[in-house]
């Protein structure tokens, strides 16, 4: 997959690749697209600061009203969003830890160690990325019904605890970033495989682990299909809570928008702080979560 290239390469070529200065037309087009990207979110906040009565009038509101905190409060309590945000943090956090840890060690084995069936197993990893989540929904639903896991968070954590994409991502990174001599030197010094992972692989892999972690967190936070089957409003993730908020009897639209805002805010904060790194990470090589 040609999308992958080491971060070093991206950095050094980014200078060479950029050719000409942008003209005013380029800026104009980019500003328009930026505005289109940001507008729905800004308008979510505007709608969340109004009343649902005001949203049923023409023209639609284009500036903030006075009801933001009242609506946020209603969404917080009525839609169980306090629980939902906590649950989403637990779910996305656990999945991120599991995926990053297991992807790194598996990626290391595929990149640098020798073992039988390596090629076959790697092909299997790549093939796994093609399998849609719908394929496992029916049996997993039967299991969680049997195990009485409906509404328990492990029902949504365990199925996505590892990721084929993550393994492949770490393998691509470590193949280039981890010098084989470094491992050999550690072996000569008598380090066991676990020590090598801890003292050599993890330090080298740290940038890629951070990127994979952020991508995984975004994916897990936004995962939709399986959580709405496995969980209900009693113990929801953010996405489940938003769905039932929107499907309530006579949904109050300004409150729904307040809920949408609350459910997106944590990720937006992550983006404001780490935006540059996330952009870099996706550019290093990424596949839709």
């Amino acid at each position, binding site marked *: 997959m040609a999308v992958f290239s080491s971060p070093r390469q991206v950095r050094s070529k980014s200078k060479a690749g950029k050719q000409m200065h942008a003209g005013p037309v380029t800026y104009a087009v980019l500003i328009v697209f930026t505005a289109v990207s940001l507008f729905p979110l800004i308008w979510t906040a505007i709608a969340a600061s109004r009343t649902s009565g005001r949203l049923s009038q023409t023209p639609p509101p284009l500036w903030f009203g006075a009801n933001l905190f009242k609506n946020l409060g209603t969404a917080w309590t009525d839609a169980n969003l306090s629980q939902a945000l906590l649950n989403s943090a637990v779910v996305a956090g656990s999945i991120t830890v599991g995926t990053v840890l297991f992807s790194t060690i598996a990626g290391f084995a595929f990149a640098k160690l020798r073992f039988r069936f390596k090629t076959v197993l790697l092909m299997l990893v790549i093939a*796994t990325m093609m*399998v849609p989540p*719908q394929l*496992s*929904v029916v049996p997993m639903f039967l299991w969680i019904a049997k195990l009485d896991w409906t509404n328990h968070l492990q029902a949504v954590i365990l199925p996505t605890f590892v990721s084929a994409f993550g393994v492949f991502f770490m393998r691509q990174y470590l193949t280039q970033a981890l010098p084989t001599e470094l491992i050999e030197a550690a072996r000569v010094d008598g380090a*066991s495989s676990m020590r090598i992972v801890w003292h050599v692989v993890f330090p080298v892999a740290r940038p890629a682990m951070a990127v994979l972690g952020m991508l995984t967190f975004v994916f897990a936070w936004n995962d939709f299909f399986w959580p709405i*089957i496995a969980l209900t409003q009693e113990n929801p993730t953010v996405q489940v809570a*938003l769905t039932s908020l929107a499907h309530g009897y006579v949904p109050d639209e300004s409150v729904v928008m307040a809920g949408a805002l609350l459910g997106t805010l944590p990720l937006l904060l992550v983006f404001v702080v780490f935006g540059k790194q996330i952009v870099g990470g996706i550019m290093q090589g990424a596949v*839709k979560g």
Partner: protein
Amino acid sequence: MVSELSDIAGATASPAQGGAAPRDEAAQHRPADHDPAAALRRKWRSRLYRWDVKGSPYAFVSPFFLFFVAFGLFPLIYTGWSSFYRVELTNLDAREFVGFHNYTRLFQDEFFWNALRNTFTIGVISTVPQLLMALGLAHLLNYRLRGSTFFRVAMLVPYATSVAAAALVFTLMFGTDYGMINWALGHLGFGHTDWRAGTWSSQIAVSSIVIWRWTGYNTLIYLAAMQAVPSDLYESAALDGASRWQQFRHVTVPMLRPTILFTIVVSTIGATQLFGEPYLFGGTGGEKGGSAHQFQTLGLYLYEQGWTNYHLGRASAIAWTMFLLLLLIAAVNGLAARWLRKSQ
């Protein structure tokens, strides 16, 4: 899983009590050689060392494969198996073998073909403009630019927005009477559109959510690929008098071909599974995909059969049909890639 890992950790750490199994091997001339107990210890250590080298790769890949077998491979097969049974959501233990009945029933169901058609048209309406825009935007972002980081992060913001939040905002903006989009179109002289009611209008509305969320993401992927294009290609094209557009057509696009193919595959997989956007756009009872199923995708159809109509066997048959469809797409794509390579 954790205990297994720590077992391995214990096993490999034990030679490291001295931390030096191989060093012992290297230092065999030591007088301790004559001590039988020390020799035994050394032998044991070197054996542990060999086990560590041989066994640890499997230990490192096994967590992934254990989870994959439990939550990927086994469910995949089990889904195939239950697609030959009648299984009702209301009574999970009562199952009855029905052979290919779920499949024949599926292929006779007009709503299946409807869902297949909708998945295809929504896939085309959402993927084609998305990737074309992403390509153009990446080209623009590849110029020397002030505030390039700002533009990149801003375009990625929709990617951070969840399906649920995005779909809810767009549903409100596509509202018939008070929606922002009808209001704006009204200024341009268009009448009010009931976006949800029409086939095309609803599919365009659903597609616009997908386009909004994924264009920036694909832009960055193309941008990364463009930055890897050697700049001397552009320089020699410029020397030959190629305009910016000609450089884009004859240098950038051919160099990006593998990346473009890759994004097409990923978008196609995403489009085949489309669920959240139409589900939430449909409001209450969204799994129907509109009053006349006008934007019901295969994902919604599966959910409706399984969790509204309680036919889990039929839902399994739909899931496997989707899987076979994806394999078909992958095969076609592989052939296309080979053909492209040959024609070059």
